[in-house]
């Protein structure tokens, strides 16, 4: 099933997709890891409710679209209580995604997704994260601000959200010491996931890093 939603990811502007069942939760997803499974399950359940409400008003409802500042969420019901949704940049091509949903929906109706039900994604409750320690003066707030701003130039509107998530993880893994700055950069690089962009990001933050080391 993953290969079918992976095809959606090829569409420019589509970050990834997720199939959710109201009873069993997330069936499959190829969204970036920062979208945690338990959150996606909740999003899916809310979308199912919106879809059900829409269906009560419109018999011929196809998709629902939620347009936020940073992203657009597009959802379609595959069968009762099962829905697929994609999270996209605001510039995505809606017609192309809608057509791909049509094809995927046909595959689903033909039963080509049956293997899905045999192996639902295990919903492991994430342990409650310890309260992140305050960022000490060892690492410059100005450097973090520069890094966040630079990430915006690389990843666009989702950058702030991604940076905060990575930052939270980084803080959970150890003290916010400047000696760990490369760990933080490595984790951001994993999110960027494109060598050219990683190089560009390093270039953008290099002077801030140097200033920080001097300071």
């Amino acid at each position, binding site marked *: 099933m993953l290969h079918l939603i992976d095809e959606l990811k090829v569409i420019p502007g589509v970050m990834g997709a997720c199939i959710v069942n109201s009873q069993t939760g997330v069936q499959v997803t190829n969204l970036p890891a920062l979208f945690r499974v338990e959150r996606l399950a909740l999003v899916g359940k*809310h979308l199912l409710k919106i879809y059900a*409400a829409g269906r009560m008003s*419109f018999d011929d*409802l196809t998709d629902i679209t939620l*347009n*936020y500042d940073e992203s657009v969420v597009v959802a379609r019901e595959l069968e009762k209580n099962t829905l697929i949704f994609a999270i996209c940049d605001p510039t995505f091509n809606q017609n192309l995604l809608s057509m791909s949903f049509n094809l995927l929906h046909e595959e689903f109706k033909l039963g080509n997704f049956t293997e899905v039900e045999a192996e639902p994604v295990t919903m492991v409750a994430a342990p409650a994260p310890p309260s992140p320690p305050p960022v000490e003066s060892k690492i410059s707030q100005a450097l973090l601000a520069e890094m966040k701003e630079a990430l915006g130039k690389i990843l666009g509107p989702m950058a702030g*959200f991604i940076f905060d998530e990575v930052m939270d993880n980084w803080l959970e893994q150890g003290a916010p010491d400047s000696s760990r700055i490369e760990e933080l950069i490595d984790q951001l690089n994993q999110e960027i996931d494109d060598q050219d962009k990683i190089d560009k990001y390093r270039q953008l933050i290099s002077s801030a890093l140097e200033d920080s080391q001097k300071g």
Partner: protein
Amino acid sequence: MATAKDFVDQVNKINGVAGCLLVRDDGLVIDQTLGDVENYSALLQMSSGLADDIMTNVGFSHCHYLSFNRLNNQTFYAFPIDKYLLGILQQADCSVSDMLDRVSYLIGKVSTNQATSVA
């Protein structure tokens, strides 16, 4: 509520708008040019509340609008505007981006959320 009614009047005159309604977030219908108001009002309230929950859950910021896309191309839109909800039924054959730009412009004039282009 003359201002709100004027607003509904102006929205209703936009090319591509088949009808609209404005409701307060407690469900009170301020004005409408559509039938079946109770049904649309409930849909607006419920869907915008859930869209807000998604926004909080995922970490998105402002929700510009929701759309219910249909086979007959008469998409229904829900625009949260501060304490109000604007519902718009689109005509089947219209320039959607022009219509949304016009709606967005009008919302920007009345909203404190500084609505920007949504198309």
